[in-house]
């Protein structure tokens, strides 16, 4: 089976059928939930403090529901209208935006206490059109620069993604660093082909957080 990001852009790949299939697949739900909890762990928010989080590529709201359960307010962005429609049907509690993160985000500086992203940013590695502003480095630069500005200082963003090569990891981390982020890559289950998970853990300022770790 081909990786979805190699088949078509996300707003096309996740049409009505795929969006519903994706959301109702219990195995996907479980993996998404596990990765969301792990991302929250790495986000290391101060305990018992109210916070506003950004869910980048929120899809149908699987991760957002966990954010709500954990007591966070959140704003979700996604480029696939069918996914957002499923999120609406599920009556998620966050505000939803139809947004292409490769075009950059439009939030005032310091808007969010943190950000998570589950299985999304590998989509930025494919050129959408031949237009020069659509090249992956352009799209990644706009995304990371505007994300950095939208986050408070200090804070963190944790982005789980599926790279196909070390070059991709290198490209993404170098552009994130140029945008002003500290931090780096955390790999869970590095020796298991199936369970291996890559998390890009980005720090604004010192990264803040409830306790020192990572």
């Amino acid at each position: 089976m081909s990786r979805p990001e190699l088949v078509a852009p996300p707003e096309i790949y996740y049409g009505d059928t795929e969006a519903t299939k994706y959301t109702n697949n219990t195995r996907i739900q479980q993996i998404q939930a596990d990765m969301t909890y792990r991302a929250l762990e790495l986000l290391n928010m101060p305990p018992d403090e109210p916070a506003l989080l950004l869910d980048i590529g929120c899809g149908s709201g699987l991760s957002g529901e966990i954010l709500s359960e954990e007591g966070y307010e959140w704003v979700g962005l996604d480029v696939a209208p069918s996914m957002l429609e499923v999120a609406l049907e599920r009556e998620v509690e966050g505000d939803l935006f139809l947004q292409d993160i490769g075009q950059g985000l439009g939030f005032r500086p310091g808007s969010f206490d943190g950000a998570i992203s589950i299985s999304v940013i590998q989509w930025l590695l494919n050129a959408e059109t031949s237009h020069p502003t659509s090249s992956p480095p352009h799209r990644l630069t706009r995304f990371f620069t505007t994300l950095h500005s939208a986050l408070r200082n200090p804070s963190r963003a944790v982005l789980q993604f599926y790279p196909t090569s070390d070059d991709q990891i290198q490209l993404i981390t170098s552009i994130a660093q140029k945008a002003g982020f500290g931090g780096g890559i955390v790999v869970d289950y590095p020796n298991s082909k199936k369970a291996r998970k890559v998390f890009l853990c980005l720090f604004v300022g010192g990264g803040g957080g409830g306790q020192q770790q990572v």
Partner: protein
Amino acid sequence: MVRLITHNLLACHAKGCTQNNFPLQFKDVSIELKEQEVNSEFVKNFLPRLEWKALVNTARQLGDTSLPEELPDMVDDDFLKALHHVLFEIHVEEGAMVCPNCGHSYPISNGIPNMLLSEHEIG
């Protein structure tokens, strides 16, 4: 839904639009009021992050005049309740948000704003 807490964080992100691009102006909106449990802690915590004038003006445009022109020095329960209502319970479901600088219109449909830019608007 677009709640005013989120609207207060949004600025236009079209290419070259870096000044006078906030707040986006609501146009032809339909709103729904939906109750949400009050979280005073959150509201208190979030207060310094708000652009107060923009919030008050936007709320008034949508017919809610409960907020004072100036941010009060003393924050009491009644104030927090009014602020909670404005931030979380007014949901804009249809209409548009228009940039005061470049005029780009972000349509809102089914409570979801479309923030997509066309090729020439991407920075």
